[in-house]
């Protein structure tokens, strides 16, 4: 890593308002607030343990490249830094098969509002020792602590990974295909990704008359609507092409923002209490409220 976790903690300090600069891919530093940068650099990749350890400031492209060299990958979107991706907690379009991104974080050394280095989680792929602070920190937008170092769970690259398209009903594909990695639908056309043994992918592709394509379609943006996957059928009444929906997941990529309902007071109170206990003076990413951030692409 290009600096130690203790140097990072010293930069975060103990008193003043502070934000994280990162790569500014997902919003970056808050304007007008002194910014710090987390350590960058890969510490270790261990394919036999399926883990990667690195500084939170490490670019995701560097992570993906290094993992690919040992036949591994990690379910974190490309672009920006790994710390920024985890802080925002937004999954990529493979969530249908790979689950939400929040599940990949095994351990982190983060710097809290007191300026102290704090460990959450454990280095092994399975761990229930104590409360699950890793899940708390993923998607907290750096309001409870700043990621310094992280250990994430990796997985082997599939032997074959291909994108297809079809005009078939996406819900029938969801019902009939065995664990597709992604099914995207714009109201008319369906795109899907199948991973696995090349022969199995061939069988599925011919069975469902899929046409191979180079990759997924461009996603309308910048907004991501979050709806129960059971409500996606209702999109049939909308103009084809005005959205791309992740079938079986419930994320809908759109140009216009989603109107969200009011927050349950009990949820608001829990958020406020957690913030109060972790950052009483509100100096970490001051003014940022995870409940109000909304989902950004």
């Amino acid at each position, binding site marked *: 890593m290009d600096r130690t976790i203790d140097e990072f903690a010293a930069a975060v300090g103990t008193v003043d308002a502070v934000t994280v600069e990162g790569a500014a891919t997902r919003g970056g530093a808050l304007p007008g607030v002194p910014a710090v940068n987390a350590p960058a650099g890969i510490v270790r990749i*261990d*394919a*036999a*343990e399926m883990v990667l350890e690195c500084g939170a400031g490490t670019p995701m492209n560097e992570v993906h490249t290094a993992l690919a060299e040992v036949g*591994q990958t990690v379910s974190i979107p490309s672009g920006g830094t790994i710390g920024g991706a985890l802080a925002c*907690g937004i999954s990529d379009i493979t969530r249908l098969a790979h*689950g*939400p991104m929040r*599940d990949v974080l095994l351990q982190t050394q983060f710097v*809290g509002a*007191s300026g102290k*280095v*704090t460990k*959450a989680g*454990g*280095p*092994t792929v*399975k*761990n*229930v*020792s*104590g*409360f*699950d*602070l890793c*899940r*708390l920190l*993923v*998607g907290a937008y750096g309001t409870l602590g700043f990621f310094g170092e992280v250990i994430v769970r990796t997985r*082997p*690259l599939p032997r074959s990974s291909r994108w297809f398209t079809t005009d078939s009903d996406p819900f029938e594909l969801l*019902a009939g295909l*065995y*664990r597709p990695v992604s099914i995207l639908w714009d109201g008319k056309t369906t795109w899907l990704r199948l991973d*696995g*043994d090349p022969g*199995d992918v061939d*069988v*599925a592709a011919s069975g469902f008359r899929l046409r191979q394509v180079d990759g997924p379609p461009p996603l309308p943006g910048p907004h*991501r609507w*979050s*709806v*129960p*996957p*059971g409500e996606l059928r209702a999109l049939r009444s909308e103009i084809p092409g005005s959205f791309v929906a992740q079938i*079986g997941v*419930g994320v809908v990529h759109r140009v216009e923002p989603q109107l969200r309902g009011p927050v*349950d007071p*009990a*949820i608001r109170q*829990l*958020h406020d*209490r*957690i913030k109060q*206990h*972790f950052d009483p003076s509100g100096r970490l990413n001051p003014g940022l409220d995870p*409940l*109000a951030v*909304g*989902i950004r692409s």
Partner: protein
Amino acid sequence: MTDEVVAALQEQIDPARVRSGATETRLYRRDASNMTGQAGVIVFAESTADVQAAVCVAARLGLPFLARGSGTGLAGGAVPPDGAIVISTSKMNQIISVDAENRQAWVEPGVLNLDLSKQVAHLGVHFAPDPSSQQTCSIGGNVANNSGGPHCLADGVTSAHVLALEVVLPDGSITVLGGEDPEQNGLDLRGVFVGSEGMFGVATKVCVRLMQNHPDVATMLMEFDSVAEGAQLVSDIIAAGIVPAAVEMMDQLCLQAVEAWLHAGLPTHAAAALLIECVGAAGQVASEMAQIRMLAAARGVANVRIAADEGERAELWKARKGAFGAVANVKPNYYLHDTVVPRARLAEVIEKVYEITARYGIDVINVFHAGDGNLHPLLVYDAREEGTIDKVHEAGREIVAFSVAVGGVLSGEHGIGLEKRDLMPLMFSEVDLSAQEALRLAFDPQLIANPNKVLPNPATCGDMHEVPDGAWI
């Protein structure tokens, strides 16, 4: 005090389901660990409203409460602090709704793990976490402990299979954490509630993810001349980019104990055996099996038994999951640990387990999730032999300390509870623990939700109760 509590509870809950008799309070004073407490009152909840009523009484009177599922926990998580209101969720056992298309279901917390999978089997799906106790453990208990199981190697533990939770918070308010929609604004409170061991409130409804059943499955049993050889093959398999659905190891004493009971044709002459299961589409299963056999041959593994049909597969799994019961063929009592170590250190740690237990003169059976490095050394003993319990206790502490020292963790799936509470400093600094305490205080400012568990430092918990008799901490 008890009369007042009972009266307050019976005002809002059917009096027949509020019990404080000697029979009930004794029955509910322990879980499947070796520890006991003393329940004050037991509420047999049938609804969220019952749970809320009980929690509100506890909050108003400042009494400790804890929810309890099937009581199969091994870390003392459901051992009541003295005088606690125990809220049994066993009667809340309905599957509320199933969304077959999107493979989700809302269930009550008292639904048994295996019952859920059986009830949805006709839809071609199952609930992936499969603890060995899955015939009796409840979904609510799985949520509290973030339970695992042999098949969590590929599909993840309970947290990865819970989408939303209706909960009664320790102040009696009801809310939903997470949701069926995937990207709610705000913190992942669902994620922190799972595995919080009853200290953040009571789950009253659980939205679970159901996984597609696999079109093909292959199960094989391999025998080894040493534990180290078996452990090495596990690392070889994962390093080759294969993640089997399950990789389980049984050592010789385990094989012998199980064989004496089940007569499954286990290789009792072998130092260890690996039970490996590959699942998926036919081509993938075939290629993984072939690769694994090649890797095994390269390590000199001579005997590989492949389950010929569903019956033989079930028999092999019965042998694995029944191992704890088979202990009775060796000694009447056992004490089970649950550390996780890096796969590369498995052989070294098992050797250390043998060395430690031999030094204390205790028999040990090893049966564990080798694929994710999750050890389950069973220290078997006879509690009637004087001084044995102290030796088992000391040996266990050494095993846990060694596991953590090589880069492992205290618990992979059983939780901390009372049992490992005071071992938490082996893994976490005071600063680390204070962050966990901060999260707890946010959920439970009164410190009444299953107090005295998980976190070792009672500094902020002046009203905590003493550790129950027999607690092995």
